[in-house]
């Protein structure tokens, strides 16, 4: 399989094998996102699992977000000079003040970008 090498040394060469992989990835997206409603056959969720669904969305989001805030290169950060923390704090504060997700994004980026690009944190 020289496809990877070719693509990285010769820019903009499209590779059939890669396109086939992309087709496979598309099938994965469809199958995982519809997994439990592909079949219409009767199936009753156990009660604990049904109650667990109260917590699944928030748990999934927290599991994606928290490592992105406090880890870098697979390690828990050990410095407070990480602008992501201050961006997240600013975003959280503005969210509770204005009850606005957009406010959270804008305030977070307003703190994050100057520290990150200007200060190099």
């Amino acid at each position, binding site marked *: 399989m020289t*496809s*990877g*090498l070719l*693509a*990285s040394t010769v*820019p*903009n060469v*499209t*590779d059939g094998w*890669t396109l086939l*992989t*992309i087709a*496979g*990835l*598309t099938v*994965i*997206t*469809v199958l*995982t*996102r*519809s*997994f*439990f*409603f*592909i079949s*219409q056959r009767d199936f009753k969720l156990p009660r*604990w699992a049904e109650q*667990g669904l109260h*917590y*699944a*969305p*928030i*748990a*999934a*989001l*927290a*599991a*994606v*977000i*928290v*490592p992105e805030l*406090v880890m870098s290169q*697979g390690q828990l950060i050990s410095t407070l000079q990480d602008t992501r923390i201050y*961006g*997240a704090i600013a*975003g*959280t504060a503005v*969210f*509770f003040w204005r009850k*606005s*997700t*957009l*406010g*959270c*994004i*804008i305030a*977070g980026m307003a703190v994050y*970008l100057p520290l*990150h*690009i200007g200060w190099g944190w």
Partner: protein
Amino acid sequence: MPQQAAALQPAAPQTTQPAAQPTAQPATASALWRHPEALLGLRDMATVAIGIGAWGMMTGVAMVNAGMSTVEALAMTFFVYAGSAQLAATPLIMAGAPMWVILATALCVNLRFVVFSVHMRAYMLHFPLWRRLVAGYLTADLNYVFFVRRHPTPSADPAVLRAQQAYWLGGCSANWSTWMLCSVIGVALANFIPVAWGLGFAGILALLGVALSLLKTRLQSVAALIAGAAAVAAFALPLRLNILVAIAVAVVVCVPLAAVRKARMQSSQRTEQEAS
């Protein structure tokens, strides 16, 4: 195509169907767009569009910077439509990894969608298979989160189903077009937007804002803290399985806690009644 067939039919009022009826006649897209819920779905998604856009753009930049051709990066964007799976698969593709490794990685990164699909099942079963698959394909993280926040209980009532479909259509259209537009911009301008600027952080902030808006009960906050800590602790697991572990730990801790709290509340109500 079934969509055209449905469009040709006059918009007859839906007759009430028995709950046992497995499939409902899907409403046409244009009829759904006239429903007020469609606008609401669009508006809800618009509050996080800036974050989705920045994240999509950085995904486009990352794919091109990893060495993908323009055609490959665009095919990835338009067909795969799953940002985190794309980011995980890109370096593997460029390194020439075996296809099964790439697909297995994407599968694991996407496992959280399987959990979401359990939840969406009761909303989806009313529709024919092709429509369920298309709906599943288009339901990204935030579409799911917003949908179950707006419509917490599934229903077989045709009017409610119609409202749910309209809300879903509005949200998915907004998410899809924002993501696609910005990903294409990222692919086109990859050489001018350094990844080091960290514009992708806006995507994390969007998820953060949505997560905060989901916190309704104290136990949900507990679930968030537990899942966050578990995701960090299990980060070394391969294929981002830490996310699945975090969901499992949060559910295993919070479901019994909820049962204990409920029992305690009932017993305290009983003692109050006895006292009065």
